[in-house]
């Protein structure tokens, strides 16, 4: 059945539209260009609220950075957006798909590289990539996707090396390559450069930068210069809430400080 949709008007984030002749309203609408939309997203554990009523939009094709100190709720937010954790309250949509009600659809759209490099240690680089590709792609596309990922991250010389024998930096690259091999529309990178030396970090930045044109990226990091170098938009999380958001310029103007580190400290102090 074909659905006929006519968008009538936009008003303050709401869309008024006709679907099969019936008038509807979508509050806090998901525009075509929104990759992620959350409303009051909350995660409560027994004795702690890790994420507390977070609402934000991420525009398609942008790289956004979630900044915050340990326990600010960055990883929990990512877990909810990748269907690894159910929200206690509120909603989250990934390209219009609800992360709870349409988890299967969401899982086809997202790729994640977790904080701990999640690779199969006894498998070679190629086998890891082939395995992950086989979960998302048709058989005939696997070989092409593997060689593309190997090339994108310069993994050529390690293709037949077991993952457990890779250095931290190369393991991290493999983990990201595994996250993108399923051709996700959104890539979540949870502290991708944690524990890497400065050269490995800079190299990885270049590779992340190259991915920006292909997908929306949500990155969590403790490194201010990383967010400054890579992010189109920055969200600062304090105690489970989004304390500030905007481009670096917008945040600098708001706080009257120069540089993300100073901006972050100012916001963090205000948020206490």
């Amino acid at each position, binding site marked *: 059945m074909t659905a006929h949709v006519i968008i009538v008007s936009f008003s303050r984030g709401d869309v008024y539209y006709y679907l099969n002749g019936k008038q509807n309203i979508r509050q806090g609408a998901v525009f075509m260009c929104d990759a992620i939309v959350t409303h009051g997203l909350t995660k409560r554990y027994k004795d702690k609220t890790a994420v507390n009523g977070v609402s934000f939009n991420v525009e398609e094709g942008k790289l956004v950075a979630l900044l915050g100190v340990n326990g600010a709720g960055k990883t929990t937010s990512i877990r909810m957006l*990748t*269907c*690894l*954790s*159910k929200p206690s309250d509120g909603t989250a949509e990934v390209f219009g798909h609800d992360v709870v009600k349409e988890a*299967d659809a969401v*899982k*086809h759209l*997202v790729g*994640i590289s*977790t*904080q*701990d*490099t*999640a*690779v*199969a*240690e*006894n*498998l070679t680089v190629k*086998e890891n990539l082939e*395995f*992950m590709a*086989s*979960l*998302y*792609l*048709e*058989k005939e596309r696997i070989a092409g996707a593997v060689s593309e990922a190997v090339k994108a991250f310069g993994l050529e010389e390690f293709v037949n090396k*077991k993952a457990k024998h890779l250095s931290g930096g190369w393991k991290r690259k493999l983990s990201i390559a*595994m996250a993108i091999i*399923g051709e996700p529309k959104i890539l979540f990178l949870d502290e991708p450069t944690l524990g890497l030396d400065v050269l490995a970090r800079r190299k990885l930045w270049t590779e992340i930068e190259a991915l920006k044109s292909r997908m929306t990226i949500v990155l969590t990091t403790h490194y201010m210069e990383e967010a400054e170098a890579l992010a189109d938009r920055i969200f600062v999380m304090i105690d489970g809430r989004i304390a500030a958001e905007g481009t670096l310029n917008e945040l600098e103007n708001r706080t009257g400080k120069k540089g993300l580190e100073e901006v972050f400290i100012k916001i963090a102090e205000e948020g206490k």
Partner: protein
Amino acid sequence: MKNRAIAFAKRNLIEMSRDSLSYIFCLAFPLAMLIIMSIVNESIPKEAGMTLFRIDNLSGGIAIFGQTFVMLFSALNVTKDRTGSFLIRLFASPMKSRDFIGGYFLPMAVVAVLQALVAFVSSFVVSLITGYELNPVGLMLAVAAVIPSAVMFIAIGTIFGTLFSEKAAPGLCSILISLGSFVGGIWFDVEGTGGIMEKIGKCLPFLYATKAARAAIKLDLSKDAFLIPILVTLCCALVLSAVASLLFGKKMRADLS
């Protein structure tokens, strides 16, 4: 077409094939026991009338004994994945609970069949040396007859791996390996001993698995020797597989809550 269970099974099989412990426990150890017990059997005077370690009895017992280590490795596979972040990463993929269960069961079933083949081929060689010839048809039938018990042990291992930690699960499996060996009639005649040992043996599925394997080797397909034991083993395999599947699914949902 994407078959995620097969892809995951392939990954698990490769991981296991690169772990030397799996060769030691799943192949070398049962084989060593077969040789040692055959030597012991040769030392027992014929007048003693002790036939438990004669190759036609020993062979089936060794096949089941080997499967207890398949149980151990099933538990290890699951706990290892649960301990690291790899399984969590896979939970974010389109894989479903049934893909995980299929992926854990299939490679272990392959290992169990290979193990049975090695045990029975070795038994055939031993039988030629000792002069007590085994029927090759019986041995081939036995390979099929130990499949239900293999599934049963894989299911038990998966249950332990799902419920317990990387430290607790192997310990519990070791207890079950000892218990299964004793009351499963592998190392002594449980039914001949009678009493509480026989009662415990008949309440657990291991004795039936051993009896079915031994009867298949001897081509004794009678109701008491083969049919009832294989049916009991099959039922236990199905029930335990369903339990393993339910528990893993429940654990997965709990981890994602």
